């Protein structure tokens, strides 16, 4: 059946079987392989995407349920080749080792900072509690999100400084 949705700002229309999962649609039909399949059982959060700005597990959603929705994947974070603050934060704070959980972690962080620009450590840890990391440990992931929060706030205060902070310099 026909599904129409917007992914990273681009409209897509495709014919899919109702049983196709959103994660498989993104990876196979759109070739957006930054969204990972980890546990495939709604436990790990590697498949996290933003659905109308809110993080959800794309392995536990049918593509047809996203009819009319606005999806953001990790590929949608960087604007014009420049890293978004959340990406710069993970780069600066060594928020990853193998990188498998990173797309999900960054999208959860991005959504958290949209809703709550200066979260406490507790609030960050709670926000990422549905996303599992098996190598870095969560210390640097928390620091990365704090880094991005500070960068975004600095950018909001001094717009001309934004590009430099976002670039991690």
């Amino acid at each position: 059946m026909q599904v129409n949705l917007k992914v990273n700002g681009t409209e897509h229309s495709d014919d899919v079987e109702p049983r196709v999962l959103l994660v498989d649609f993104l990876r196979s039909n759109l070739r957006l392989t930054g969204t990972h399949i980890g546990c495939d059982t709604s436990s790990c959060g590697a498949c996290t995407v933003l659905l109308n700005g809110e993080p959800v597990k794309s392995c536990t959603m049918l593509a047809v349920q996203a009819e009319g929705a606005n999806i953001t994947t990790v590929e949608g974070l960087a604007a014009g080749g420049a890293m978004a603050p959340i990406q710069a934060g993970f780069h600066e704070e060594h928020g990853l080792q193998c990188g498998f959980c990173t797309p999900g972690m960054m999208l959860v962080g991005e959504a958290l900072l949209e809703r709550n620009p200066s979260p406490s450590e507790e609030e960050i840890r709670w926000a990422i509690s549905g996303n599992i990391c098996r190598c870095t440990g969560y210390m640097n992931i928390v620091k990365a999100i704090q880094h991005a929060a500070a960068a975004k706030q600095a950018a909001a205060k001094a717009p001309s400084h934004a590009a430099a902070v976002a670039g991690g310099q």
Partner: protein
Amino acid sequence: MFPAAFDYRAPASLADALDILSDRGDEAKVMAGGQSLIPLLKLRFSQPALVVDIGRLPDLGGVRRDDGHLRIGALTRHVDIERSDELRSMLPILPEAAHWIADPLVRNRGTLGGSICHADPSGDWGSVMLALDAELVAQSKKGDRTIRAADFFEGPFTTALRPDEILTEIRIPLAKGHAGGAYNKLERKVGDFATVAVATYVELNGGKVAKAGIGMTSVGDKNLKAAAAEKALVGREATDEVIAEAARQAAAAAEPKADIRGSVEYKKDVVRVFVQRGLKAAVARAKEGR
């Protein structure tokens, strides 16, 4: 993993959805947020011929007060309950329980009605509904009816809902006097099912318990109502001794199975502790006027 093939309908209105279920309810599964159903479909524990997606139907979400009841639309998501300031001041047990469900990502999709209809004995909302003596409104093409929570849960993943019915609203009677509730849950990690969880609720009148509700999670083949423990409270002052006796009765009524999360004895004792702790918190909240 991906589900076995199914027909898919996403009706534009509740009336259309009820029409579809009137014809094909026996072979259909109704999907709201899909956070319980989709994992079952992927594991092929469930292979319905038809999935009726009501997730984007308008007018089945939201919370309103009406006629002495709090009326919550079945499609209200866990996250909406968790973040509702109105509910936090009116009935804090609801956001408190929502906070413990699965993980934040699942709470962004999962719904109150979907979770209740899934009727997992380890589900959190069933116990809260039992403690609050909620009424569940079921609609079909023939009309609607109201089912008390105590009559709704029939067994594991089994409810009183007929195949042609959709749960549309949850009605919670609002106390006239002082009332309070609490939800206590023990889980090994975020996203795990409860080892044990207990919902407790009391209404006070002149220092005595006018109404008591206790619902128990993960200690039976469905969410259990601790009826004897509730009776032990009503009409009495909620002293430490009375609460301790109710907690013992609830532990005796629990029917947990030994598994990786603990032994039967351990789980029964967690019930006892949580009933005691929950009742004390509920009474304190009721006295504060919450």
